[in-house]
């Protein structure tokens, strides 16, 4: 479904990614791991059109997407969350999700302006779907709360719900469990599994080895912008280069 081939990207003298390749098969849960500054978020950014790779290609469902505008890539069916939450802080949880439905709604300016019956029906459906998503992430009762007033864990889950609102085919999660306690992390893993069961393809970045081991079917390990390992979790965990990269920080359990 997603094919990243030989992608490189640098910022001035710093090489954030060098010749990195990665595939994500439709219907799978895949993970990208690596120490701080390894280039994981940069990889996500390139996939969603924030900057273009200096070399290499990115394909989604066979279509070249590298260097295309972000909104266009989002319309193709890639949604994401951000490492440092990017909700609309002054909007309510419900409004955040409704905004996520943007690409699925058909109404044009004129219809919005005069509120045609079709537009009203669509708005009704959008709200119903938004409430379903709120329910899915356990925020049903917080529908009218401003995003900024939610707890950190709730904000993380709201951002996932907002990403899902566009009915993407591929969901990118950048450190979704960051800052969560073990109980919340388990809840999150369960949520990701639930989402996966609906047929969603998921690619996630994570630091917590335990979290990815239990969840992902396939792992890619980055270190200093290089791909140092790639494969099923078991094999990756035993890879000496991975152990070396994680030495001193977080040993794979």
């Amino acid at each position, binding site marked *: 479904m997603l094919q990243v081939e030989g992608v490189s990207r640098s910022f001035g003298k710093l090489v954030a990614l060098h010749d990195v390749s990665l595939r994500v098969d439709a219907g799978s849960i895949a993970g990208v791991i690596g120490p701080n500054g390894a280039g994981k978020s940069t990889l996500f950014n390139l996939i969603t059109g924030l900057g273009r790779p200096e070399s290499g290609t990115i394909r989604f469902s066979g279509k070249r997407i590298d260097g295309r505008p972000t909104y266009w890539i989002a319309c193709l069916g890639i949604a994401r969350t951000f490492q440092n939450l990017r909700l609309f*802080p002054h909007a309510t949880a419900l409004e955040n999700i409704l905004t996520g439905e943007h690409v699925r709604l058909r109404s044009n300016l004129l219809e919005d302006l005069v509120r045609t019956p079709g537009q009203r029906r669509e708005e009704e459906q959008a709200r119903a779907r938004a409430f379903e998503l709120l329910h899915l992430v356990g925020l049903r009762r917080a529908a009218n709360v401003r995003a900024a007033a939610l707890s950190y864990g709730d904000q993380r889950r709201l951002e996932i719900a907002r990403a899902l609102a566009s009915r993407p085919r591929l969901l990118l999660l950048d450190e979704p469990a960051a800052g969560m306690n073990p109980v919340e992390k388990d809840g999150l893993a369960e949520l990701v599994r639930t989402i996966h069961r609906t047929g969603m393809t998921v690619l996630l970045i994570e630091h917590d080895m335990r979290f990815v081991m239990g969840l992902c079917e396939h792992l890619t390990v980055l270190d200093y912008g290089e791909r140092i390992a790639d494969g099923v979790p078991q094999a990756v965990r035993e890879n000496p280069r991975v152990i070396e990269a994680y030495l001193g920080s977080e040993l794979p359990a």
Partner: protein
Amino acid sequence: MIFVYIGSTILVAAFGQRIHVPVARIAVYVGLALLLSVGPVLGLGSDATLNTLADAGIFVLLALGLNIVVGFAGLLDLGYAAFFAIGAYTYAMLASPQFGVHLPFWVLLFVGAALAGAFGIILGSPTLRLRGDYLAIVTLGFGEIVPQVFQNLTRFTGGPNGIAALDFPSLFGRSFGTAAFPYYEVTLGLIGVALVTARNLRSSRIGRAWMAIREDELAARHLGINTTRMKLAAFAIGAAFAGVGGVVYAAKLSLVSPDLFQFQVSILVLSMLVLGGMGNIAGVVIGSLVLTLVNQVILPQSNVLAQAAHLPVNLSNAHFFIYGGILVAIMLFRPEGLLPSAQRQAELHESVQADGV
């Protein structure tokens, strides 16, 4: 009488949105609309009063338009008067002896809106990807260029003197003439349309897209929102409002000249928004009415009083000070404007409940 009209509007706008029973709220608004539209028919209010109110109404229209750009989409437009000028000159050139063209007012309302909107798109397409403060300065530059061009193209626009003796609009064969009443009613009707437009747009797909751009443009793009296009839409719609306002303004004054569309006009409208609360429709209406009242009634009145009391003050030039003071004071001490939206309050209220759950 003017205080009855403006005062009741301000009160109703301010408290109308606090009323949470929809039927009651609609009833209150309809009552106000009736008072405003039927009152003058019954002879409530002199010609001078209606004249001031019609002028105020044009500014309400402008403020509602600018609110779409600044309040909804979060784009600071400092050259808004340029679109106002384009609307006004559209009427002046196409309904006057200038070229011997005499198109009807009602048609020109649409032409003015379309032309101003088109200029909005022409200016916006290359500039809307600029950062907020740069965009503000570009629009300011555009706002300086437009009246200057109108002033310089003497052959078409009458130069610094502008174009005079514009046609009076007419309805069913009856000319509006110089009485204020018909202009007042037209303005009122247009404000009605503008209010519904603004409200409908805000709570729909496009309104949410604007909110997203205002709050976090990068996140908005990741949701598939074509930010450039949405900003252009805001720009064009806002400009179209100003175009309509310009047509009415020119028709009512029966005259246009470049000095009516200076930077100060853009800032006056911006001050109205800031005063009432950017993005808040009722607040914007209140802000424009209050400032019009200050400009047209309170300042001249206090001047008369000051002179009667032999005080050595002349307040007729205090406009600048008041606009500037409003901008600074509100930004520093109450950035949400005088009228915090009831919606926001409700949200805050509910968040307290939810935290308790």
